């Protein structure tokens, strides 16, 4: 009895040392073949997949998708981003996965077939955080859940798309004048690395409107502001998983060229700056009479609610590094204001000012101000 107890203790001790030693020796010996061409054992592959799917389900719970997830503007923006960053590995309707990436291990799943296996919140989690040891990167643009939901919106639409439908979504409106010089051509003269159509894919040619309301109109915007935005994306001061990777490839000269190019381009909707009131007597009344309409809010603010007048900075006499807002897409304006409210855009000296302003706005005010500004642009056809 005594002997057998001692024997047991010795056995446990030896195993505790021997098992890790064998594993260590196994790794050191190099016997296990890490070649992507060979693949894993079927049982090991099954184990890895089980761990991965369970982990995604476990960690992704609690991300509620936005109510308007199926909105076409989201899908379009997601499609354009998918085409530029995801399609080469994950394939598109009508084209299979690029043979080079297909040789990765694990090989990237063709998403047309595989997306339905995941819930929206699981897709969101994968796009946001990436997957260890698979080659799937985490989202590159800081905290921008709105952009990630656009990708998810597109992914959910993807399995039902025909080849032509996908092309129409991912290639933008493409109703541009063929003779007009494209931003891409302009940039490609200097940078071979910039992917073809990097700007046009979302913003479209300057003489068309962007493919999605979530994408800002660039044509007619002030050159100083456009350059500032690109510098901020490039230097990591403004978060966007869509714009940062694009801006990262730009050099100073190209940023200036692009900014100048778009600032003088003629858009179907002309961005405008509104005339600020000369004297604030209407709102500066010490009794604090609350102006009612959206335009009063934009021109005079609301002192009691600490809402500042938008036009004081975004007016005709404003600094060229402040953007023109009249005619800009409402969904884009609203999205940016919400970003500011969450502290997502106050990393720069300019953003800090706007962050102070945005935190006093209500959701209702954000929506109505964004729509009001969007309606202030002048249509080029109408003015001619």
């Amino acid at each position, binding site marked *: 009895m005594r002997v057998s107890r001692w024997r047991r203790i010795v056995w446990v001790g030896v195993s505790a040392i021997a098992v890790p030693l064998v594993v260590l020796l196994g790794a050191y010996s190099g016997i296990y073949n890490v070649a992507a061409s060979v693949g894993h054992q079927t049982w090991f592959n099954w184990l890895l997949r089980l761990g991965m799917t369970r982990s995604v389900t476990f960690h992704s719970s609690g991300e509620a998708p936005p109510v308007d997830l199926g909105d076409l503007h989201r899908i379009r923006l997601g499609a354009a981003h998918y085409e530029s960053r995801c399609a080469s590995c994950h394939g598109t309707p009508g084209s299979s996965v690029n043979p080079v990436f297909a040789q990765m291990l694990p090989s990237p799943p063709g998403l047309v077939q595989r997306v339905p296996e995941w819930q929206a919140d699981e897709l969101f989690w994968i796009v946001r955080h990436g997957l260890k040891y698979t080659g799937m990167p985490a989202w590159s643009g800081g905290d921008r859940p709105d952009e990630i939901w656009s990708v998810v919106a597109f992914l959910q639409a993807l399995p039902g798309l025909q080849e032509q439908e996908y092309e129409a979504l991912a290639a933008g409106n493409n109703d541009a004048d063929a003779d007009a010089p494209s931003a891409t051509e302009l940039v490609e003269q200097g940078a071979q690395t910039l992917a073809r159509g990097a700007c046009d894919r979302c913003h479209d040619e300057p003489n068309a409107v962007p493919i999605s309301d979530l994408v800002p109109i660039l044509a007619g915007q002030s050159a100083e502001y456009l350059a500032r935005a690109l510098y901020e994306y490039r230097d990591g001061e403004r978060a966007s998983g869509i714009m940062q990777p694009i801006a990262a490839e730009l050099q100073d000269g190209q940023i200036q060229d692009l900014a100048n190019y778009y600032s003088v381009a003629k858009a179907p909707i002309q961005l405008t700056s509104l005339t*600020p*009131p*000369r*004297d*604030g*007597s*209407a*709102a*500066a009344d*010490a009794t604090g009479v609350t102006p009612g309409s959206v335009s009063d809010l934009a*021109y*005079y*603010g609301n*002192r009691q609610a*600490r809402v*500042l*007048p938008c036009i*004081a*900075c975004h*007016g005709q*006499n*404003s*600094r060229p*590094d*402040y953007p023109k807002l009249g005619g800009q897409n409402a969904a884009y304006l609203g999205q940016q204001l919400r970003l500011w409210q969450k502290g997502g855009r106050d990393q*720069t*000296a*300019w953003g*800090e*000012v706007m*962050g*102070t*302003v945005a935190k006093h706005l209500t959701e209702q005010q954000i929506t109505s101000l964004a729509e009001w500004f969007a309606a202030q642009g002048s249509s080029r056809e109408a003015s001619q």
Partner: protein
Amino acid sequence: MKRWQSCILLFSALLLTACDGDQSMFRPAGSEADKVVFLYWTMVIGFAFVFFLVMGLVLIAFAGPSQWRVWLQSEKQIIGLGLVFPVIVLSGLLVWGYLLLGSSSLANGKPDLKIRVEGAQWWWRVTYLLEDGARVETANEVRIPVGKLIELELVSADVLHSFWVPAWTGKMDMIPGHTNILRFVVDTPGTVKGQCAEYCGGAHAFMSLYGVAIDEQTFESWLEAESAPAVPLSQHPGRQVYLSTGCGACHQVRGQIGPGGSGPDLTHVGSRLSLGAGILPNDTEAFERWMARHPFIKPGNRMPAFGFLSDLERRQLARYLDALE
């Protein structure tokens, strides 16, 4: 000098710090402030007497002759000195204090000048409510004519503040949603300082103001200048910076750039005594310093940093503001 001697010297010096200068109740410039000082000294002397009386009795209780101690122990003395005496002294003081400060001759009658002072984090909005209904807004500075009955309407834009210009009158709280009335007359001309006397958040200590009492004629001409719109300076490069940067969103330059309203009115800012609510002098260099470093000069203040302004723009802006007289 021995350590205990220097300690006492240091402590006495500390006691004296509040006794002089332009922010002291010991330099009363008007009848209300006189009363505060009178009440103060009455209490100090009276309670010094009470203090020594109590200490004397304590001494008797411990080390006095046995007859005195027996006398002190009697129920009569305990009721008389321990109950009746404090009740009479404290009640008398309360009633007298109320009569002295409350039943002022200033409480009745029409004031000669009405001014609304609004405390806000962390500055003072000063609005002259003129008889013809006109309103003249300035900030961080209350100018009044000597010998006139002044009525301040004290209000708050956000949290509790307290208006206290010790040389003029006692302090009074500014309460959100409520108007407190403070009336006083100042007889001695001169510039004195005030301070928010109720903790109101981070920059509370940097919420000062100036009180300026001047003769009536000077006051009238000042008020006339103050109610006029700003000098145009339409070609001033600093004006362009002011306009294009959007300073007008918070700071009005009356008749020219607005709407303003949430920050101090800057129509005649160049002619004021201080910047940042009494914490910097008022000159071009101080304006420039404020613009470049105000988050450090007055931490937590509500103005964004505007860190993108160039040195040249800040200098132009400073010159423009200083020229707004």
